[in-house]
């Protein structure tokens, strides 16, 4: 009977309906793999995967997981599509500029595969909502773009017992691993604490080769499918290091650390001290990629005075005597700078301090107002007292004073 043949491909071994005929066709290249087959495709269809971030890493991950037939994809991102995203964030197109990323992503994923349910969270991932959101999914994919969210993702996954498929990128390099499995290490086993703001540039300040998130995001998608299917050797206990200029791939061992504050079990050595997300709130307080205030830095250095673009413009108009110092990198300087400023990149400010006049007022600025706070902090530590940082940086100056400056 012809119907028997059809049943073999549309029912699981216990007879439950699994795949509609059009799904059998859609996923036929999976069904032909011994390691996937009809049972495996059913597991993929039943899976619920949460993507933290619908940006560079989230784009390829979401596209491939949707195409693969992951039944429910959760997307959390508070951001809107910006033209500067399109160089690498393939979920979004030119016509999506200005739309919430999760909406643009949902439309794209529906087109890729209408069988997939997309659950969107158009909000920030915060200590208040993290556990509730994470608990609704089987696997979390970390495609965030800042340390605060990465530590929050890790700790929430450990507390909720969720696997965390990690990937991150910087310039030409990337990392990937699988954290938060039973007995496996977590992100804090490797990197115990986040760096202070300003020491390591985030994505908004640092360049990245556009295809690099494609390379790392597709590795995250691969690991996610392996976890769902229970096949192969996921990157558990291993950190993959990708260097795209030399095009080298290397894995290094990551061991579960009994003294890890998140997942460690040796209480006498500080293991497992993070019992709730309130325990490490300061680790999650770093400013996000596009944020215009330096809350974390400001908290660390309450003495740093900030001035607004309007206040700075007024000082210029009045002919006040002050040093205007741009602490960005030379390539950013080339894209546009404030009149009368000179360039002293953040990394060189300590050395340059010797040549600055401590009796003159100094106004520091960067792109978004975070690095200039860090620079101000260094100058104050070096004994300078008349130091101010431009709140919101040159981007806020552009928005409020001089629209002819380019955004980047």
């Amino acid at each position, binding site marked *: 009977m012809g119907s028997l043949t059809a049943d073999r491909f549309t029912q699981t071994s216990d007879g439950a309906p699994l795949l509609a005929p059009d799904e059998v066709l859609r996923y036929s290249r999976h069904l032909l793999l011994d390691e996937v087959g009809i049972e495996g495709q059913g597991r993929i269809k039943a899976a619920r995967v949460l993507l933290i971030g619908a940006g560079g890493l*989230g784009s390829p991950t979401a596209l491939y997981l949707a195409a693969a037939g992951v039944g429910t994809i959760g997307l959390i991102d508070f951001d809107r599509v910006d033209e500067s995203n399109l160089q690498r964030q393939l979920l979004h197109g030119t016509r999506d500029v200005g739309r919430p990323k999760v909406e643009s992503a949902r439309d794209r994923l529906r087109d890729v595969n209408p069988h997939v349910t997309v659950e969107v969270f158009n909000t920030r991932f915060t200590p208040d909502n993290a556990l509730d959101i994470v608990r609704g999914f089987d696997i979390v994919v970390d495609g965030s773009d800042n*340390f605060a969210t*990465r530590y929050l993702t890790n700790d929430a996954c450990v507390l909720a017992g969720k696997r965390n498929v990690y990937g*991150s990128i910087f310039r030409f390099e*990337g990392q990937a691993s699988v954290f938060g499995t039973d007995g496996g290490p977590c992100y804090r086993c490797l990197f115990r604490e986040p760096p202070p703001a300003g020491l*390591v540039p985030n994505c908004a300040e640092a360049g990245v080769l556009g295809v690099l998130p494609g390379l790392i995001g597709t590795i995250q998608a691969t690991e996610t499918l392996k976890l769902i299917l229970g096949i192969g050797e996921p990157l558990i206990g291993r950190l993959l290091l990708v260097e795209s200029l030399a095009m080298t791939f290397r894995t*290094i061992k990551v061991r579960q650390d009994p003294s890890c504050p998140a997942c460690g079990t040796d209480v006498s050595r500080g293991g497992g001290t993070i019992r709730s997300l309130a325990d490490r709130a300061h680790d999650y307080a770093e400013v996000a990629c596009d944020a215009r205030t330096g809350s974390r830095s400001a908290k660390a250095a309450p003495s740093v005075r900030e001035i607004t673009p309007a206040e700075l413009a007024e000082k210029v108009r009045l002919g006040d005597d002050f040093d205007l110092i741009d602490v960005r990198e030379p390539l950013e300087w080339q894209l546009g700078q404030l009149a009368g400023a000179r360039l002293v990149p953040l990394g060189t400010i300590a050395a340059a301090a010797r040549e600055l006049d401590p009796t003159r007022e100094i106004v520091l600025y960067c792109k978004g107002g975070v690095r200039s706070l860090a620079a101000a902090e260094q100058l104050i530590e070096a004994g300078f007292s008349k130091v101010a940082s431009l709140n919101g940086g040159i981007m806020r100056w552009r928005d409020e004073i001089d629209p002819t400056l380019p955004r980047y």
Partner: protein
Amino acid sequence: MSISITLPTVLAKLAGGNKALTEEVSADGTTVGAVVESLAQRYPALAPRLRDELGKPYPFVVYYLNDENIQLSGGFDASVRDGDEVTLVPAIAGG
């Protein structure tokens, strides 16, 4: 004895553009910390990216001695032997 050191691209420019370096250190009882300090002396601009002001490793930069994280084998006190490889892996957060 000589120890080879691998830096990530982002730090290589602070070490004269070299991703792969060799550090010659005295033969006896030498540790990862001594190798790092020797490197810091050679490249002062790189020094603050390698360790904190007290000479201790940062919690967001991991050192591998051959294939093992030194956190689990004494940190900067882990001893090195001729021909060992030290790899510096910084936390990165872009996405």
